[in-house]
């Protein structure tokens, strides 16, 4: 990779719940400008790994370095400073139901920047425009469709212009057209704004469309069973589980 410093590095990550080990020895690096996909079947720990990367779940073992800061070893202040520089889109959007879309995007700007009110409004409008929601500014989250909610959640994640964005299941529960629209949005944002994406998904079409590299977790192996370019994994992998996943075969 060209950039010497990865924007995200997980080393030796493990997670156990009681005596049950979900995964162990998971290590990976994400370079600047990459779309990195964490994939795997249901229950393999994709979302758990994501939660560890965004500071919500202390790993049983291992460390996470986000933008050069080890978030679980750093002081609370340093960690908060790093967490302000990443954006997260939660699976169901997690938009604040009592605020309009514009207010949802303006909230982080209000708390973390000195922008005056008209400026905040303008910047928030810009973000919603970036994801194609310029005409839905004053709607409440309950009044929009699932695809729009995902887009709005991406806009809110973009509020502080983070260099690194985490997306949890961006295309789950969407029709193929809307889902492809989200994929295209991800690629456009990467191209135009130079963002890095870490995406958790199991939508095969979406993985092949957006991923530069992927990391495949498996429940039985309790860890990584494959990593690399998804197209090559699809065509060349010898592992029956990886082949089954990429060819959509029943186990």
């Amino acid at each position, binding site marked *: 990779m060209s950039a010497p410093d990865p924007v995200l590095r997980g080393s030796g990550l493990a997670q156990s719940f009681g005596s049950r080990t979900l995964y162990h020895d998971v290590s990976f690096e994400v370079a600047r400008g990459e779309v990195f996909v964490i994939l795997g079947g249901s229950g393999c720990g994709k979302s758990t790994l994501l939660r560890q990367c965004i500071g919500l779940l202390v790993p049983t073992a291992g460390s996470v370095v986000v933008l050069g800061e080890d978030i679980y070893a750093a002081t609370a202040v340093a960690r908060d*400073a*790093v967490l*302000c*520089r990443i954006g997260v889109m939660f699976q169901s959007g997690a938009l604040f*139901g*009592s605020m309009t879309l514009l207010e949802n995007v303006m909230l982080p*700007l209000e708390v*973390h*920047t*000195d*922008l*005056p009110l008209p*400026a905040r409004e*303008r*910047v928030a*409008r*810009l*973000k*919603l*425009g*970036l994801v194609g929601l*310029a*005409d839905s*500014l*004053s709607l*409440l*989250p*309950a*009044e929009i469709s699932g695809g729009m909610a995902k887009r709005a959640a991406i806009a809110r994640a*973009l509020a*502080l*212009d983070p260099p690194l964005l985490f997306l949890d299941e961006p295309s789950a529960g969407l029709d193929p057209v809307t889902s492809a629209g989200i994929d295209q949005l991800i690629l*456009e944002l990467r*191209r*135009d*704004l*130079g963002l890095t994406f870490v995406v958790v998904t199991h939508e095969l079409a979406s993985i092949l469309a957006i991923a530069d590299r992927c990391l495949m977790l498996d429940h039985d192996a309790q860890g990584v069973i494959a990593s690399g370019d998804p197209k090559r994994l699809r065509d060349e992998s010898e592992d029956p589980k990886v082949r089954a996943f990429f060819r959509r075969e029943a186990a």
Partner: protein
Amino acid sequence: MPQAAATAALTSAMRDKTCVLSLRGRLDVTAAGTLWTTALNAAAAQPEGPLVIELSALESCDTAGAALLLAMAEARPGATFEGADPQVTAVLERARKALVEPPPPPPVPPMPWHTVIRQGLVAAGDGFAFLGEALAAVLHLPTRSRQFRLADMLRTADQAGVRGVPLVLLLGILIGLILAFQSLMPMRRFGADLYVANLVAVSLLRELGPLLASVVLAGRSGSAFAAEIGTMKVNQEVDALNTMGIDAMTMLVLPRMAAALLVMPVLTVLLELAGLAGMSVVLVGSGIPLVAVANQVARWVRPADFYGGLAKAVVFGAVVAAIGCRAGLSAGNGPRAVGQAATAAVVGGIVATVVLDGVFAVLFYRLGL
């Protein structure tokens, strides 16, 4: 540290007859926040002549920075950008596309007074329609008896009744104490200490008992009904019931109304007894024997006072429960709607109770009760 790196600066200069505003450094969201007002003022306040926004020293720019640059250009029609590197140009281009003017929000016309009144009448009509629907559901109950779940009713009765007993007892004792104490002072000046017992007993049994019990029911249970049914509505559970051929009115509303009907007389009687006990404490403390107080109450309180109060309590209970359920069923979407439904339930319940109490007062007077 991110904060330390977040630096961009603005300088202005004249080149020939052109004003040049130069930006350098990294124009990220923090820097944009710091520079916003200064930069817009500088762009707007330049003397006559064209304006050039010089960007060759700008290392990077994010979308918030782009918003600032575009706002500067907008503040001064005819301003041009110069020297932007490809990254900055790409971000600017993207931002420009994203900021196409959204359609202006439709103006909200001020509501004329007759619309307000009409809406109020429509809302009241809806309330009556709801009562009618509830009545229809009761009439259909024999054919839908399986949809009326007794367990639900008992659970609601437990929640609304049994668990409300401590609050009702506390409220009753305190109200009895306060009423007796406050009326003892002026009555004593006329040597009418003993008649405090009549005063407090009659007002408790006829008015305050049912009224306060109803307020407690509205606050504790009306709001709970609204929140519970409202959440079900928001989660499409009510739609699910309808598609299963289950009448929401029979399954959700009737058990709650029945439970409220059942528990209200009990709560009212408990509140009245507690109030009488509180009153007795004050009167005995002021030197009147307990027997005299008891005799006074027994002689002056008519059975009609007591039963009239209970009848009111039953009606209040049904209306408060119905208003709570209706607020839940008519909830809109989202978490805000659930809160609004709970508020509507409490406010509606209390207002309806007081209005009905007035109606009962006129009715009882006319009937000579």
